[in-house]
């Protein structure tokens, strides 16, 4: 039985196993093997996980906490992704090409990540027979998620996008600072405040 140094609660471990199995069926042993290549990283609230210009060395799954990925532009930042428990997040272009990151990753809450280092990933792809399939399937899932979001952003009105997101992620309204949520949904802060009251009204009349 492969031993790994991963110190995570059983609940998190079970969620992880389920997540991995959603990509490729893994035996218990194979799951343990995968974990043995990973490491756990802790971040305080406000920690920059990766800077623009740095080369991303890790692929991460959020075990606990909240991470934002954003692009720093001339006079503002644009949030590209909000990641909570069981979400995959990293600076993927930087990671896959090993070029400087164009984005920042920042912990908005105290955060624990399950991380796979680039070198370990290369090794895993050689050592593990299901490695290529796992990697491809994870990337397919990431591609789909972004494609569907892009499509929504083009098809739906601002209001529809807001309601779509809040319906599926009701706790994010409380959890994520308004400026980040507004940026992620591509909504102006004033509009966002107005829409927030819509939701509160809905809740009251419900």
């Amino acid at each position: 039985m492969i031993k790994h140094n991963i110190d995570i609660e059983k609940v998190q471990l079970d969620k992880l196993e389920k997540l991995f199995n959603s990509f490729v069926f893994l035996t218990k042993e194979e799951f343990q093997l995968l974990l043995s290549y990973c490491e756990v990283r802790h971040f305080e609230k406000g920690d920059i996980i990766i800077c623009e210009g740095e080369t991303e060395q890790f692929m991460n799954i959020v075990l606990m906490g909240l991470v934002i990925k954003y692009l720093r532009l001339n006079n503002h930042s644009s949030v590209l992704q909000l990641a909570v428990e069981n979400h995959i997040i990293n600076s993927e272009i930087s990671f896959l090409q090993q070029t400087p990151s164009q984005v920042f990753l920042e912990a908005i809450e105290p955060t624990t990540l399950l991380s796979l280092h680039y070198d370990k990933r290369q090794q895993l792809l050689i050592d593990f027979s299901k490695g290529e399939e796992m990697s491809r399937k994870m990337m397919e899932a990431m591609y789909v998620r972004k494609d569907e979001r892009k499509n929504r952003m083009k098809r739906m009105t601002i209001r529809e996008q807001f309601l779509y997101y809040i319906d599926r992620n009701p706790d994010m309204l409380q959890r994520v600072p308004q400026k980040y949520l507004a940026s992620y949904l591509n909504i102006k802060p004033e509009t966002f405040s107005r829409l927030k009251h819509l939701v509160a009204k809905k809740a009251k009349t419900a």
Partner: protein
Amino acid sequence: MLYTNHNSQISSVCNFGFMKDQFRKFVENFLSISDADFALFEERAFVKHCHKNEIITKEGEVEKFLYFVAKGVIQHYFKKGKETITTELVGEGGVVGSASSLFTKKPSLYFIQALQPSILVGISKENLEYLYAHSRAWQKAGRLLMSHFLIKQEQQYIDVLKYPIRERLVRFANSNPDIIHQIPQARIASYLKIKPETYTRIKHVLTEVTIINSQKKVTSDKA
């Protein structure tokens, strides 16, 4: 070796071979493929000729194939009321197909249409999975290609946020010099998220870019 005219209506084995060889060149940017492995692909792929404006995949239907563009220009689009919104413009050497639909088996979010007479090398999802199951090389190629498209997707998203309108048009023209004049202006404007009025105002940069690119070509041909 002599090949028949690409526009010929006679589909000869030579023609098919040439198109598939183009695909092989594309894949070998990522890793080398043995003759045996490529034969595995050849026997499961097909060549599809599309006439101008032919719809290849309909919005709402489940995508069954992925296609390599051997020749022509393809767009992905959907309709928002009366408006046609172009989300992808792909020329020779690119890949088209409603990938999200293919991976999830959910209905396609897009139409896929040939903007010019086009020739595609296609493969079904089942055959793709057969290749992955029976060839380590194709398994790896699948991963590398997926990385490539994930990078492209993310970069497109970042570019829209990062670069001003005029620069986006110039960058597009520089990366697609051969097809820029084969695509209706409304489609380019839509794809680059430029309002039609704005596009009309700035489209002269395309002429400048074309002149620069053709001058570059002349210099490199001479070298």
